[in-house]
């Protein structure tokens, strides 16, 4: 593993781990159970650069590379999947598309407060009838003078309850422009506090409970026309570019959860005695630990490879799709085995593996399901053949 990393990456990992173990680990179980977003920690993370990891220094960011980004998300997820989710979604599918597709004015306006963590970003694509098939988006933006009148019902918005700067995927003037009915998706940026912008109740989720996931509704919400991100009709391109980066973050998050489950599995297997010896001495447990360690190692290599490709400015879409698929499936398997090693205690909230097991489940669903990722990978591989 270390052959892929530089000194800087090791220093970043050590520093982030020290912070996470001191500031997040002690409250991770509590914020999960109370479904509480820990502003006190988020503010500290903002000051340290966690909300602008790859943003240039001139815009208030930390200006780190993609490998550092993966390591940071992995380390946060090792103590709290929900906080890692907040950080990665904010960085990858909110800040990154603004930075990539925004005009200089838009970047100056939105990116610095996001990069400093003073504002939180959200990516609002999913609707009741549009998820894996983004073509089903029904949200509309009707041009009216200097503004768009936006109507949208966005669901399962990560960071939704606290997000200030929201990328809304919608169709501009669909009745006047028939082509927009299927393909013409655009992105407008809506800001909390604008009349007509409301958030729904928090979703009562199985895992990732400290993340304020909720619906965001825009009802005749007047958004200035200059808030259009990129060109009209370029929404899918923006979305796909964001998700290429986003899925690498989710892969790193799944990796961090799996790593935590592996560590807890090893710890418990050494500590728990049955039949007169630590259960780690039983072959059945050793087999589980061996599988867990191997899968986590493989997932880590894949995540770092995708990040390295991105840093080298080489195509990384397939590598990041593979990393996301494998890391998510690994997180599911490894957390399941960690629960198994713990036996009845693993099914209790008294041990953290119960939380890891719940948190891991969604990594196979969001930022593209495992099934969609297999489709993307198959398409890419078949084209190469």
């Amino acid at each position, binding site marked *: 593993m*270390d052959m892929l990393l*530089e*000194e*800087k990456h*090791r*220093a*970043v990992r*050590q*520093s*982030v781990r*020290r*912070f996470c173990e001191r500031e997040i680990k002690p409250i991770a179980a509590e914020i999960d159970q109370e479904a509480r977003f820990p502003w006190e920690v988020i503010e500290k993370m903002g*000051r*340290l*650069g*966690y909300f602008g*990891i790859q943003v240039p*220094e001139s815009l208030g*960011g*930390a*200006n*780190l*590379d993609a490998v*550092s980004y993966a390591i*940071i998300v992995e380390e946060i997820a090792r103590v709290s999947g929900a906080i890692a989710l907040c950080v990665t979604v904010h960085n990858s599918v909110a800040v990154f598309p603004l930075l990539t597709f925004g005009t200089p004015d838009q970047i100056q306006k939105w990116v610095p407060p996001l990069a400093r963590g003073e504002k939180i970003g959200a990516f609002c694509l999913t609707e009741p009838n549009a998820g894996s098939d983004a073509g089903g988006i029904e949200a509309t933006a009707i041009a009216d003078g200097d503004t768009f009148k936006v109507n949208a019902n966005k669901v399962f918005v990560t960071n939704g309850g606290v997000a200030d700067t929201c990328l809304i995927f919608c169709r501009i003037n669909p009745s006047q422009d028939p082509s927009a009915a299927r393909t013409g998706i655009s992105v407008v940026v809506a800001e909390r506090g604008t009349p007509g912008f409301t958030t729904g109740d928090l979703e009562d989720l199985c895992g990732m409970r400290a993340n304020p996931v909720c619906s965001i509704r825009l009802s005749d919400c007047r958004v200035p026309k200059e808030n259009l991100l990129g060109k009209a009709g370029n929404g899918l391109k923006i979305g796909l570019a964001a998700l290429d980066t986003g899925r690498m973050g989710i892969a790193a998050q799944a990796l961090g959860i799996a790593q935590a489950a592996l560590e807890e599995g090893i710890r418990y297997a050494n500590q728990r005695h049955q039949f007169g010896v630590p259960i780690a001495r039983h072959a059945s447990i050793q087999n589980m630990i061996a599988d867990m360690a191997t899968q986590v190692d493989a997932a880590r290599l894949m995540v770092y490879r995708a990040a390295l490709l991105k840093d080298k400015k080489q195509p990384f879409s397939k590598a990041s799709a593979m990393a996301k698929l494998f890391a998510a499936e690994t997180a599911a398997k490894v957390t399941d085995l960690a629960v198994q090693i713990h036996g009845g205690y693993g099914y209790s909230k008294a041990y953290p593996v119960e939380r890891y097991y719940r948190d891991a489940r969604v990594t196979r669903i969001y930022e593209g399901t495992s099934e969609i990722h297999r489709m993307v990978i198959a398409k890419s591989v078949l084209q190469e053949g």
Partner: protein
Amino acid sequence: MHSIVCIKSVVLSTPKGRMSRSPEKSVLNPFDRWALEMALQIKEAHGGTVTALSMGPPASESILREAMAMGVDQGVLLCDRAFAASDTLATSRSLTAAVRHLSPFDFLLFGVCAADSDTGQVGPQTASFLDIPMVGHVTRVESANGVFTLHRQLDGFLEQYELASPPVAMTIHPAAVEPRDPTLGALGTAFDSAFPITCLDIAAVGLEPRQVGVFGSPTRVLSVKPVDKKRVCEWIQGDPAIQADILVEKLVKAGLVG
């Protein structure tokens, strides 16, 4: 004000067999974090610069860069094959030469000990070689009308020392200050850019091979092995209040609390 903080790269895990120092296994000695923070707070209060000085193999450069990410102005690595196998006396002699090379300075700071060897000797010995006053376990550095007062805490006592004038050496108590986290951006910059780490070999600081390393060390570590701790489980009977009383009494008698 010029503060020099001596820091050490320590090995994370307990060695099995021969110990090798590699970057992935090494971290900044946790006790030195407080010394760095204290030096940075002195700089914030009185201006000046902070130098982080480390003696060790090239892998130690990493902790100097980390110190720079925390806000230290320059990192100096005292590095030479001749330093290998230095004991605390040879280490203190070497650091003394480097500190003289970096003089003038006002404060020379150390952690109270290193997490790996745990001797706590290098700070006091270096002060002794330099022939400057030394205050251990400092919790606070105050100044009024140009006079510095050092607070120290040890064994449940708080002491205050007035300082005639710098330079002074001190070790910093682990409860003295809250060490800052470097920002992610500062970490990236410290490791990425052409931030120079000054490397000094023995000739640069005016030392000769016979003064350092194995030749300059009157003590030699023959072996290090873990102690087999025999644990005995003792059951305390009675209702919980009585159990608690008995437990506290036993702990007090053992000198573990009180």
